[in-house]
């Protein structure tokens, strides 16, 4: 199976990326999965151009394919101005809104203090609910202080267990990725209009 981490961290090294890596390691320890990391920082310019051009550049296109083709997703954003970062949102804005339907997703965020931890519940969870992804119950927030305190490990393990369970459980039901354009036969389209008229 394939597990993809989307990290919207901006600094190098980044605690957002660090959290993503920890979550990926814990998940891959429970379910056999190849891990791929998508660093949105490297795609920032192509994401902006996608808005002005209408189509993704090559690197962004490869990242979108990785995300939409994954068996499970771990998405991690820093908290900016009481929400996910604009770059994080922009990446999901350029993906087809149907592309993540039914996909197991673990949501996570980092911040300077624990005061913003509910961002996961009031911003990220509704976003992925809209995209009709299957979001695991445990969302993982890491404030600066959590990197030196007890508790983060336990939340990572719990969330990873939930994601691994979903990935294993849903893998049999996963629809095939559509490589070809889908058409409804034209007679059916015409007939639908006639019956509605």
């Amino acid at each position, binding site marked *: 199976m394939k597990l993809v981490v989307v990290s919207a961290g901006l600094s190098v090294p980044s605690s957002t990326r660090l959290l993503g890596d920890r979550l990926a390691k814990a998940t891959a320890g429970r379910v056999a999965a190849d891990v791929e990391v998508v660093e949105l920082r490297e795609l920032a310019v192509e994401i*902006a*151009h996608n*808005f*002005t*051009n*209408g*189509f993704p*550049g*090559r690197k962004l296109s490869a990242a979108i394919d990785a995300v939409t083709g994954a068996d499970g997703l771990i998405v991690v954003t820093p908290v900016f101005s009481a929400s996910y970062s604009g770059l994080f949102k922009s990446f999901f804005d350029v993906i087809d809104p149907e592309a993540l339907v039914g996909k197991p997703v673990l949501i996570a965020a980092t911040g300077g203090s624990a005061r913003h931890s509910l961002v996961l519940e009031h911003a990220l969870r509704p976003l992925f609910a809209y995209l009709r992804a299957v979001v695991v119950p445990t969302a993982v927030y890491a404030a600066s202080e959590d990197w030196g305190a007890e508790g983060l490990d336990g939340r990572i393990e719990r969330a990873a267990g939930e994601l691994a369970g979903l990935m294993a459980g849903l893998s049999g039901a996963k629809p095939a990725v559509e490589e*070809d*354009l*889908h*058409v*409804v*036969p*034209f007679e059916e*389209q*015409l007939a639908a*209009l006639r019956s*509605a*008229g």
Partner: protein
Amino acid sequence: MQFGIFSVGDVTADPTTGRTPTERERIKAMVAIALKAEEVGLDVFATGEHHNPPFVPSSPTTMLGYIAARTERLVLSTSTTLITTNDPVKIAEDFAMLQHLADGRMDLMMGRGNTGPVYPWFGQDIRQGINLAIENYALLRRLWREDVVDWEGKFRTPLQGFTSTPRPLDGVPPFVWHGSIRSPEIAEQAAYYGDGFFHNNIFWPADHTKRMVELYRARYAHYGHGTPEQAIVGLGGQVFMRRNSQDAVREFRPYFDNAPVYGHGPSLEDFTDQTPLTVGSPQQVIEKTLSFREYAGDYQRQLFLMDHAGLPLKTVLEQIDMLGEEVVPVLRKEFAVGRPANVPDAPTHQSLLAAAAQGVSVE
């Protein structure tokens, strides 16, 4: 194979001078461009249809009728005619009138339009865009093919005993293309009727164009109109040329950087790398255009966008001179190489008339 020009008809300030042409100047410039296209041996001129500033061509058949009177050979077309928000009855009438005036030198391309407010301005609902395209076009076909039409549908008032006049020239309805960038439903519609499919690929990477054209070709064959290779395909293109490619890049860059649609976005270099836009020497334009065949197959119509983004008329006319004198003659020769004998040319009034006379179905 046909080569031509298609114009969006945008009124855009020249970014190098800050000057914006008047609407009259822009309309007259479009006519001058069409006349130049005929003069240099191109085959087709197509105008867009828009109902909002900064665009002038709201009334395509008026413009095309005027151009028809001043040309001898040029095929007049549209890019596109809004099948969603125009009354199909008026399309049937307007284009049949144009067909008579132009002695058959015309066809038209259906499109849904990409400007949301046009739908409510014309009393329609954008959420019904595909369904409007399907129902309206089905009616349009009947209006051209049946002398008396009784009709009832979802979107328009019913017709009882209606005859659209004038009847199509020689009893042969105009050939129709369907333009779509990303809707498989429209490729399917074109295939179903055996009509042409135009992919305006100018802002899109090749792999996307390839998928849409392949879908159309496969469905064209599915509906029994011929082999996939015999389907009628048109593509867009966008070029700016100077003898020396560095001069072309230097001169075009301010227009690119400030252009509507892609201005203030990607770099000229990225955009030329990923889309059909070619800024360089005539030889580079030839090479890029020939490469379209690698992913679209042998096709029938190549239209170039030459006159947007505030380029002055004088420059545009120079560009069309180069296109007609240096590029298209080579393209005609090279596209003919290896082209299977059973791949047809784009239908014209004469070819459709001949087919009808032989009793061959052109549906």
